[in-house]
Each structure stands twice: as C-alpha cells, then as structure tokens.
C-alpha cells in the first residue's frame, strides 16, 4: 500500500533551475551541485536497496508440512513507489494446523519495512498462543494503537486445519482469501471485513469458517494484485476470480501465473505479496523423505497418522501403529545423528487388503536400542505390530512393520 502523503526522497530543491544556468566547465558552484545531486541519487538508490534487502530478509522461509504445500512471492513496487510494507507469514501451530497471514503496512522505504518487522513479530507471538483469528486481530489492533507509530495497517489471519479440512479466517480491512477448488470455480471466502488495525479502539472482528476439499488451494494476496491506478478494487477482485479460473491450483504455478498477469490487469506499481497453501492429502502409498533431525519426527508422525486414518484404521489402531512407527523413526534419527549432516530418513506406507506395511529406512547403522536409553522402544514396537523386521546393511537400516487392520474398518 502506498501512502499518498509520503514524499519520495529525491531532493527536488537541491537543484533550483536558476542555479543550473549554462553548463560551464570548471564552474565551482555547478560542480558542487552536480556532486551533491549524485550523492543524493546514490543515497536514494542505497536506501532503496537497504529497504528491499531488509524486506526480503524479513520474509519468512515457508515451513515444510506434510499434507500441505505452500508457496509465496514478494515483489517490490516500481521505482517511484519503492518498497512497501507488504508481508506474509506461515506459522506451524500445534495439532498440525498452520496460521497464515498477509498484511500491508502503509508507508514506504526502510521505515515501512522496519515497521512490518515489528508487526510480524507481534503476530507470531499471538499466533503461537493458539488464539482464534478474531482474537489475534483484536490483539494486533491494540498493539498498533498502543505501541506503534505510523499509518494504517491491513491484516488477514487464518488458520488452516488439514485434518478437519477447514479454513478459519478473520480480516482487518484486508481483501478476502480466494479459494480454488478442484472441479469448481474459484470463490472468495466469506470474511466479514473488520476495520484496519490502528483505526478503531473497539473494533469488531468476526471470523468465518470455510470447508475445504482435498487439493483445494487458498490464496492470500495484497492489494497490489487487485488494485491499481486504473483499476478499482471491485473490478480487480472480479478480474482475479476470472483469471484464477485458468491458472494451476498448485501453489508455485499459481503464484507464477498470477505474477505474470498482474501488470496487464492492475497496471500496478504498488508492492505485492502472495501466499498460496494447498491441501495435499497422501495418496494410496505414502512415501516421505525428511532430514534425519529430531524436529522431523513430529511432522513425520502427522503425515503417517493422516495416511493411516485415510486408510481406514480406527483411532486405536492409528495410535498404536503411530507409536511403533515413531519409535522406528526416532531410532533412525538417533543413528544418523553422528553421521553426515544432510542425512535423510524415509517412511513408506502402503495397504494391501487388511494389511498395513510401514517401512522406515535410514543411512545409519543399527545400534541396539539399549545403547541409546531407549530400551523399551523395540519391545513396544513388537507388541504393537504383528511383525517387525530389522535389516541392518552397509548402506543403512531398514525396519519393516506389518499389522492387519481389524474387521469393520473403512476400506
């Protein structure tokens, strides 16, 4: 968002026309003026670079979450508008949910970028408290009113729950998310528009809940995508929906396609941020490779649990097989620990009739669990599964586990 009040840093007054006169070589006054002008121009360029570097370095690295695919883009504004304070974020929450946000700070240059950083930290803190979207916005509003200097901020915060396939969204003056569903036209999520942050002491933010189908994509964007000098917001939103009918739902492809069309549609010079998130439920065969780090374990378990549920296992079966698989994965991570830093481990799961087979393999050497203070792990695995085979080899260790699902489970 560009603040119409804000001035560009170009020093118009530095060179009044009468001082330029006729270009006389060796004129000391003119020489000094040209030098000053060059320095000022250089300063503008440096500030622009600093602002852009700051803005880019502040934007988060998107988390890798099994069952979800994310992509995002940030594009700075044109030379006149320079960098704005658009930002996006994706924050993994407990229970496999993800908080997604997109915001727009009025202002330009380093100040807007710095302010965005401030707001980004506050948002993360509130999101990690597992607050509902409307409460996150209420607190962000107080944060802006009480501690912040600067103009208006719009913000949208939503929670995506891949297990329940839902999107819970609230917005503070920000345009609504666009949902792309497989086999249906794109629609905007209903999101009661609350006032922008920092405007109202007693804002009322309401949230809406949308159900997502598997492979649906949710797109968050800033106004640079739908508003321009020649493009009123309403037309821009219609245009976005129409454009979205012919673009891929896959997040990377979606971002690329929208960025390539924005100039012709919006004629926009504003900066622009996009965040797309797609539900990618596991297929019949689950196949995942992740870094052999302790932090991968919870993500891996989440993916396996989701796959087991979709494969028709009961909650008790999901839990028990998850513990067995979790033990094998924890061992794989422990083995790889001392080895190469980019070591990976893999989990493959498939169902053959009533039988589920889970294979965990790593590049490390099998050590008896008792050496690792995990003496209960292997016996537990054997109790919870029908069969457990451990095959150590020079290349690594493979643990194969099988268990028959009880009758009556959904196919």
């Amino acid at each position, binding site marked *: 968002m560009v603040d119409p009040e804000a001035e560009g840093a170009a020093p118009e007054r530095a060179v009044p026309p009468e001082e330029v006169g006729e270009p006389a070589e060796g004129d000391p006054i003119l020489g000094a003026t040209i030098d000053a002008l060059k320095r000022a121009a250089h300063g503008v360029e440096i500030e622009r670079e600093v602002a852009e570097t700051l803005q880019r370095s502040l934007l988060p690295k998107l988390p890798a979450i099994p069952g979800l695919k994310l992509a995002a883009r940030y594009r700075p504004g044109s030379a006149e508008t320079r960098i704005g304070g658009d930002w996006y974020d994706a924050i993994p929450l407990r229970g496999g949910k993800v908080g997604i946000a997109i915001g727009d700070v009025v202002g330009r240059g380093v100040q807007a970028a710095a302010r965005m950083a401030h707001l980004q930290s506050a948002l993360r803190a509130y999101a990690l408290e597992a607050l509902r979207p409307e409460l996150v916005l209420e607190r962000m509003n107080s944060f802006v009113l009480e501690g912040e200097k600067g103009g208006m901020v719009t913000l949208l915060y939503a929670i995506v729950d891949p297990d329940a396939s839902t999107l819970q969204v609230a917005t503070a003056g920000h345009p609504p998310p666009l949902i792309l569903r497989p086999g249906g036209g794109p629609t905007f999520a209903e999101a009661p528009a609350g006032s922008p942050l920092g405007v109202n002491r007693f804002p009322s933010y309401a949230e809406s809940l949308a159900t997502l189908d598997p492979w649906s994509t949710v797109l968050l964007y800033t106004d640079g995508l739908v508003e321009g000098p020649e493009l009123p917001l309403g037309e821009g939103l219609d245009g976005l929906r129409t454009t979205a009918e012919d673009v891929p739902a896959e997040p990377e492809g979606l971002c690329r396609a929208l960025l390539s069309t924005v100039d012709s549609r919006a004629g926009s010079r504003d900066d622009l941020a996009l965040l797309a998130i797609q539900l990618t439920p596991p297929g019949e065969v689950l196949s995942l490779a992740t870094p052999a780090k302790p932090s991968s374990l919870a993500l891996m378990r989440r993916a396996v649990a989701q796959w087991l549920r979709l494969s028709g296992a009961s909650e008790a079966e999901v839990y028990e097989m998850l513990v067995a698989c979790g033990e094998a994965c924890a061992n794989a991570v422990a083995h790889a620990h001392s080895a190469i830093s980019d070591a990976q481990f893999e989990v493959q799961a498939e169902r053959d009739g009533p039988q589920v087979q889970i294979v965990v393999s790593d590049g490390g050497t099998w050590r008896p669990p008792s050496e690792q203070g995990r003496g*209960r792990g292997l016996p*537990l695995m054997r109790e919870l599964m029908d069969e457990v085979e451990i095959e150590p080899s020079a290349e690594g260790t493979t643990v194969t586990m099988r268990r028959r699902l009880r009758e009556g489970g959904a196919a």
Partner: protein
Amino acid sequence: MRDPLVELSFDEVDSVLVGRIEGEIESINADQLRGALSQRLTNDTPGLVLDLTQAGYLDSAGVELLFDLARRLRTHRQQLRLVVPADAPMRRVLDLCDIEEVAPMDATVEAAIEVLREPGE
C-alpha cells in the same frame, strides 16, 4: 512452559500437585519435561497427579520419563498417579510397559486426588 509440541501447566488441589501435559511427548522434549516436572516437586505434597488426558502422543522416551518420575517420588514416600481416560488409545501402550507397577492410572483428576488425599499408605 511450552514448546512447539507440548505444553505443561500446574495446579494445586488440596496440597496435591497436578501437572497437565497437552501435546506430544517424545525423545525431543522428554528430558526437559522431566526437568520441569522435577523442579516443581516438594517434600510436603503426598504426590503428583499427572494429567495425560490431552497428551496426544507418548513414545518410549515418554514412558521412561514416567518411570523415572515415579521412582524419584517413591524415594520420598510420594506417589505418581496418572490420569488417562478409560478409552484413551494411550492406555494400551502404558499397559504394555506395566506402568501401573509404579504409577497407577485413574480416569479423572478428581479420582486421582481423592486417592492421594487419603492418609496412610
């Protein structure tokens, strides 16, 4: 106390310490959970009630933590009681590890406190 996986909170009911664990207990956080729980133990409580109702996952590292905690309490003539709902999938895992030899399970926090409040062994 909270990390991305687990949240630990405490309550005291009739001088019985009640710890509630929400989230997932695994090798990555078991040691720190053990530390946080041990720190809160005092000699003047009859024991610790650990509410696992909202603990969605617990592996052998978590089971080890429970055994350690129970042993530690025992040396001070205190008892660890676990709250695990009767139909919780976690029960089978805890049963397989014979947890009740050191830490009996109750279905509710109230039931666990009731037992600990009764004087004598």
